[in-house]
C-alpha cells in the first residue's frame, strides 16, 4: 500500500506535467489572436490583399496551435475532480465560480467563433469577419482572466469563510473574489507574457523567410507587426510585472523572500540579491552580490517598509500553527454536537489559523496532541526549497530582458526600414524564439512551487487535497498522459514546421514563393 504522500506526489507530478504542457499552447493562442486582429484590421482599412493573406497564413498556424490548446485544456478541468476531489469539495463553492463563468462568458465565445474565422471568409463582409476575429481574441483573453481569478484565489484566498455546518469554505463576497488584487496583477502579467510568446513566434518565422529572401514583402510586414506588438508586450510584462502582487497575502510574502533568498529581515530599504548560491542547510546565501535599496523599492514601493525574511516568516507560521490548534479542537467539539457559545467563540477567535493546524495532520492525525517537535517540523514545511525558486525566477527574468533587447532592436530597425540589411538581427530573432516560452513556464513554476505546501494558501494543505485513488490508477493516467501528449506533440511540431516552411504558399493563392517557382513561366523573383 503506497503512502498518502506517494499519492499526493504522483498527483502533483501529473498536474504539473499537464499544466505546463497546456501552457505551451495557451500563450500563443492569447497573443496570436490579437496579432490576427491587427493584421486583419489593416486589411479592412487599406484593402490590401497581402494583409488578408497574412491573416490567413498566421491563422493557419494559429489553428494548428489552437487545436492543441483545446485538447489539453479539457484535461485541466477534469483533473480537479479526478485527482483533487477533496480540494474540489472543500473550496468548490468559491473556486468553481470562475471556472463556470469562464465556460459561459469566454470559452463559448472563443470556440463558437473560431470555426467562422476559418470558414467564414466568403460568407461575411470584411467588417463582419474582422468582428469574428476580434471575438475569438476577446474570448481567449477573457478565458485567461477567469482562470487567473481562480488561480489568484489559491494564492490569496479572499471573500470566503469556513462553514461549520458543511465543513468547507464558502463564498462571502463575489466582488472580493473577482477584484482580488493578485488576480489583476497576474492577469496583466500572464496575458502580456502570452503576447510576447506570439510576437516572438511571428518575428522568428518572418526573419527566417527574410534570411532566405523568400516572400520578403509578406515577411517584412509580418516582422514589423510582430516587432511593434512584441515591444509593447514585453515592456508590459516587465513594467507591470508580478512584483506588486508579491506583497499581498502571506504566501506571497514567503514567495518573495524565497525568490530573493532573503533569510533574514533586512533593515529597510532592503537590497536585492543579484547573484548568490542559496545554502538551504546553513540558511544563508553564499557569495551574495547585493544591490542596495532595490528590493525594498520594488516590493514595498517605499524606503521605510520591511521585506520580511524567511526565518521570520517561518516563526510567524509556527505561531499560527499553535494558534490553529484550539480552532481545530473547538471544531471537533462542534462536530460532536457541542454548539455552546463558549465553543463557538473559541472557534471564531482562532479560525483564521485553522488551515495552519491542518499542516500537523502530516505528523499526527489527531492534531491537538501535537508535540513541540511536530509543530516545529510543520512550520519548517511552510518554507519551500530556496534554490529552485531563486534560480528559476532569475531564468525567467533573464529571458525577459533578452526578449526586451531583441524587440527593441527589431522595432528600431523596422522604424528605420532597414531590416533587410541586418542578417544578424534576423538570426537573433530566430534563436530567441524559445525564450518567451521558457520564461512563461518558469513563471508558472515559481508561482505554483512557491505556493507549497498549500493548495489554497493558508487554508488547505496540498497533502489533504488529493483524491482517494490508488497508485495503480495514477500510474495508468500518468502513463496515458505522457504517451498521448508525446505523440500529439510530435505531430503538432511536425505540422507546424511543415507549414512554417511552406509559408504563405500554403494558402494556394498562386502569389507566393513555391507556387511561382513551380510556375512554367519561370517568373522567379
Amino acid at each position, binding site marked *: 500500500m503506497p503512502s498518502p504522500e506517494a499519492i499526493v506526489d504522483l498527483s502533483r507530478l501529473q498536474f504539473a506535467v499537464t499544466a505546463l504542457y497546456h501552457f505551451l499552447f495557451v500563450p500563443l493562442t492569447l497573443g496570436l489572436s490579437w496579432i490576427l486582429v491587427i493584421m486583419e484590421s489593416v486589411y479592412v482599412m487599406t484593402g490590401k490583399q497581402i494583409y488578408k493573406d497574412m491573416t490567413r497564413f498566421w491563422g493557419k498556424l494559429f489553428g494548428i496551435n489552437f487545436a492543441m490548446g483545446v485538447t489539453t*485544456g479539457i484535461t485541466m478541468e477534469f483533473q480537479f475532480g*479526478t485527482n483533487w476531489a477533496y480540494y474540489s469539495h472543500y473550496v468548490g463553492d468559491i473556486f*468553481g465560480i470562475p471556472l463556470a463563468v469562464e*465556460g459561459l462568458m469566454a470559452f463559448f465565445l472563443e*470556440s463558437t467563433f473560431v470555426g467562422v474565422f476559418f470558414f467564414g471568409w466568403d460568407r461575411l463582409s470584411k467588417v463582419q469577419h474582422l468582428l469574428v476575429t476580434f471575438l475569438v481574441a476577446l474570448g481567449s483573453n477573457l478565458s485567461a482572466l477567469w482562470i487567473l481569478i481562480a488561480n489568484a484565489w489559491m494564492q490569496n484566498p479572499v471573500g470566503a469563510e469556513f462553514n461549520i455546518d458543511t465543513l468547507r469554505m464558502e463564498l462571502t463576497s463575489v466582488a472580493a473574489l473577482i477584484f482580488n488584487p493578485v488576480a489583476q496583477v497576474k492577469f496583466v502579467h500572464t496575458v502580456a507574457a502570452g503576447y510576447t510568446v506570439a510576437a516572438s513566434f511571428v518575428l522568428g518565422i518572418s526573419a527566417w523567410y527574410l534570411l532566405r529572401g523568400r516572400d520578403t514583402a509578406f515577411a517584412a510586414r509580418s516582422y514589423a507587426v510582430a516587432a511593434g506588438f512584441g515591444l509593447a508586450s514585453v515592456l508590459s510584462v516587465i513594467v507591470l510585472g508580478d512584483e506588486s502582487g508579491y506583497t499581498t497575502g502571506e504566501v506571497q510574502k514567503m514567495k518573495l523572500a524565497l525568490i530573493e533568498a532573503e533569510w533574514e529581515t533586512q533593515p529597510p530599504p532592503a537590497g536585492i540579491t543579484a547573484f548568490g548560491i542559496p545554502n538551504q542547510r546553513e540558511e544563508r546565501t553564499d557569495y551574495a552580490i547585493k544591490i542596495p535599496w532595490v528590493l525594498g523599492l520594488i516590493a514595498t514601493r517605499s524606503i521605510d517598509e520591511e521585506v520580511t525574511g524567511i526565518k521570520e516568516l517561518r516563526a510567524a507560521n509556527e505561531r499560527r500553527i499553535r494558534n490553529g490548534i484550539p480552532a481545530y479542537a473547538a471544531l471537533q467539539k462542534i462536530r460532536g454536537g457541542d454548539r455552546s457559545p463558549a465553543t463557538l467563540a473559541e472557534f471564531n477567535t482562532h479560525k483564521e489559523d485553522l488551515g495552519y493546524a491542518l499542516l500537523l495532520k502530516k505528523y499526527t492525525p489527531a492534531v491537538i496532541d501535537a508535540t513541540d517537535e511536530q509543530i516545529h517540523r510543520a512550520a519548517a514545511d511552510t518554507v519551500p526549497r530556496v534554490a529552485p525558486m531563486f534560480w528559476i525566477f532569475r531564468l525567467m527574468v533573464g529571458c525577459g530582458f533578452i526578449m526586451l533587447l531583441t524587440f527593441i532592436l527589431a522595432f528600431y530597425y523596422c522604424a528605420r526600414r532597414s531590416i533587410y540589411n541586418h542578417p544578424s538581427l534576423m538570426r537573433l530573432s530566430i534563436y530567441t524564439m524559445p525564450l518567451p516560452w521558457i520564461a512563461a513556464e518558469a513563471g508558472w513554476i515559481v508561482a505554483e512551487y512557491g505556493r507549497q505546501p498549500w493548495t489554497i494558501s493558508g487554508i488547505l494543505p496540498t497533502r489533504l487535497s488529493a483524491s482517494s485513488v490508488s497508485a495503480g*490508477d495514477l500510474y495508468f493516467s500518468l502513463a496515458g498522459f505522457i504517451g498521448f501528449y508525446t505523440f500529439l506533440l510530435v505531430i503538432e511540431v511536425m505540422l507546424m514546421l511543415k507549414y512554417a516552411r511552406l509559408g504563405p504558399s500554403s494558402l494556394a493563392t498562386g502569389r507566393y514563393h513555391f507556387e511561382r517557382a513551380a510556375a512554367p513561366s519561370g517568373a522567379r523573383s
Partner: protein
Amino acid sequence: MIEYAALKIIWWALLGALLIGFAIADGFDMGVGMLLPFLGKNDAERRVIINSIGPTWEGNQTWLITAGGATFAAWPLVYSVSFSVFYVALLLTLFALFFRPVGFDYRSKLPDPLWRNAWDWGLFAGSAVPAFIFGVAFGNLFLGVPFRLDEDMRVVESSGLLHHLRPFALLCGLVSAGMLCLHGATYLQLRADGVIAQRARRVVAFMALFTLISFAAAGLWLTQIDGQRLVGMGDPNAALLPLAKTVSVGKGAWLSNYHVYPWMMLAPLTGFAGLLLARYCSARGRAGVAFLASSAVIAGIILTAGFSLYPFLMPSSLHPPSGLTVWDACSSRHTLFIMLGVVIVFLPIILAYTAWVYRVMRGTVTVERIVRESHTAY
C-alpha cells in the same frame, strides 16, 4: 431572495438543461464522428461528412466544458465524487476526446491516405468512446455507485472500472450510443447531399429501432433493479450533508416517482414518440423534422433518467446514506444565487450568437464544394 430549497431545484433543472444542451449540440457531432468511417467510402465523401460539422463542432463541445464547470460551482460534491470514483472511465473518455480537436484540424493538413484514414478512426474513437461511457455512467447511477463517504466528505471506499461494467450499465451505454448515432444520422441527412444523405437515411431507420428496443429494454429491466428512496432528511431549506439522511432500498423503487408525479411520464413518452417520428419523417425525406425529433429523443431519454433518479444525483450502493441528492450536495445559497444570475445573463447570449453562426454556415455540404474549397475545408 429565492429560498434555498427552490434554488436547489432550479440548479437541478439547470444541470439537466446543460447536460441536454451538451447531448443535443455535441451529440450530433459525436454521432457524425461515429458514422464517419462507415458512411464515407472515399476521401471526398468523408470530407463532406467532416465539413458538415467542421465549423461548429468546437462551440458544441463547449457545452461539455460548461456543464463540467457549472457542476463544479453548483454541485461541488457531485463533481468531486463522480470524477474521482469514475477515475479510469473518465480518463479513458478524456484520452478519446483528445482525438477530436486535433483530428478535425490536422486531418486535411497532409494528403497521405494513411494519415487521413488514421485520423478518421481517431475521430470515430473520440466520438464513440465518450458516447458509450457517458451512458454506462448513467447506468451505474441506477445500480448505485459503489462508494462510501467519511465524516469529512472524503471518498474512503470505492471499486474500480471493472465493477462499473455491469450488464445493465452496458445496456445504458448502448442506449446512449444509439441515440447519438441516430441524432448524427438525422443531422447528416439534413446537411449532406446525395449518396451520403441516402446512407444516413438508412442509418436513421435502423438506429431509431435499435434505440427504441434498447430504451424499452432498459425500462423493463429497471423494474427488477433495486432502487432507492429518500425517506428521511433535514430541512431542505438548510445546508445539509449527505450522511444525515435515511434511504430505503427496494426493487423497482426507481419507478416510484411516476406514481407520485404522473406528469413525469411525459419524458419517456417524448423519447418513444421522438424515435417513431424521426424514423417516419426521415423515410419521407423530411430531414429537418427528423432532426428535431431526434433532439427530442435525447431530451426525453435524459429527462427520463433524471426524473427516475430524483432526488438522487449519485446514489451509493455500498452505503446508501453516502449517496448524493439534490438536497445535500450543492453549493451555498449565495453561490447558487450568483451562478443563477450568471446563467440567466449568458445563456441567452450564447444561444443568440450560436444561432447566428449556424445561419452564416448554413447550406448543404456537397462533394463539389469540397473539391472547390480543397485548400480551406477540413
